[in-house]
């Protein structure tokens, strides 16, 4: 498992899909009636949004599993999913700002959708920071899993914010509100980012596993002074 080539295959597939979808979206799909070429950022923005939420949902699942099963493997996956989720959410905000300036006329405004998304970036980003401050791997796993479960309350709020409150951001589009000519580049890029996310999360999980191994390994006899053996490795 640890040396499987699957993550690289995922990333390879992702790059192929993203090139295919983006070339289609940028050069072959028609321009939108009112927005013109600006609308093409949709092929990056919408797939990023879907996958950011998916990555954070996976982080939520990992957090629950990590608490329930007390296995470091779930903490490794949690670390990976959080990191990928935060990067995607931050990218989402930047792409959104780039799209907002020429269409809405502003880079940013504190509307419910944008505000709750910013909260999402900072809340999950803060959990990554928290992980850096906790030296004990077991405490780190528990604390960050609890924080992830609580922070996840914001994710459905982000999704429904445009329905619950009036906002500057429009409602979710559906296949009926988007011309057919725009569907395929959007779908292809959505799968592209999905496979990229899967590949990156699995590779990052391996990095986390190697770090945990190092943290939990007993010190080498010739370099380390004689100390009580590490007790944190075994959970009560």
């Amino acid at each position, binding site marked *: 498992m640890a040396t499987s080539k699957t993550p690289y295959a995922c990333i390879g597939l992702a790059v192929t899909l993203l090139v295919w979808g983006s070339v289609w979206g940028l050069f072959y799909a*028609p*321009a*939108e*009636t*009112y*927005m013109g070429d600006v*609308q093409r950022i*949709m092929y990056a923005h919408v797939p990023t949004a879907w996958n950011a939420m998916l990555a954070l949902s996976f982080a939520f699942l990992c*957090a*629950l599993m*990590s*608490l*329930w*099963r*007390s296995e470091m493997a779930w903490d490794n996956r949690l670390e990976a999913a959080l990191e990928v989720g935060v990067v995607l959410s931050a990218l989402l905000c930047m792409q959104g700002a780039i799209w907002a300036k*020429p*269409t*809405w*006329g*502003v880079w940013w*405004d504190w*509307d*419910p959708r944008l505000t709750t998304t910013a909260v999402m970036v900072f809340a999950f980003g803060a959990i990554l920071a928290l992980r850096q401050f906790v030296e004990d791997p077991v405490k780190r796993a*528990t604390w960050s*899993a*609890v*924080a992830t*479960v*609580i*922070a*996840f*309350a914001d994710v*459905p*709020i982000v999704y*429904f914010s*445009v*329905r*619950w*409150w*009036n*906002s*500057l*951001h*429009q*409602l*979710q*589009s*559906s296949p009926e*509100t*988007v*011309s057919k*000519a*725009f569907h395929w580049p959007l779908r292809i890029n959505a799968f592209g980012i999905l496979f990229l996310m899967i590949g990156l999360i699995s590779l990052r999980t391996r990095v986390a596993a190697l770090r945990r191994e190092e943290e939990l390994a007993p010190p080498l006899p010739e370099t380390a002074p004689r100390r009580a053996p590490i007790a944190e490795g075994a*959970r*009560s």
Partner: protein
Amino acid sequence: MSRGRWAAIGALVAAGAALLAITAGGIGQNLVYYWGPTELHAAGPKAVGASIRLGGLVAPGSIKKGEGASHVEFDVIDRPGGRVHVKCTGVPPQMFREQIGVVVEGTMDKAGYFDGRRLMVSHSNEYRVPGDGEAVDVQKAMRSTQGLDERPKPKEP
């Protein structure tokens, strides 16, 4: 049960309670990003001089470009049938046109118009190829721009 499982349950309860407080509690109703023309009129003199965001649809045929490019006047309408006249300084965004959603920051003037300081365009969730479903249904545009789809319909006048 292990401490981890108690922590899982505790965190889930905390997250669920937070979500419930926001969706079912008072925070949801008090979170207002903008007022529609109807709500603005309902506020009466309280709206004069207060910092307000006005949101709605640009009424068909109401846009008047003033002296130079940096002055524009138009009416904002909403679904319950409210209408407010807006005077705005500053260059409107490129997307600005009739029958598109707008959010204007400003205040109500004593003279009965809305004095806009910052004009933002709020487009609908429709993305169309030229010639594909171009006819704009005003009621539908208002719903999708304002995120009012899920709300109870206001009483017909």
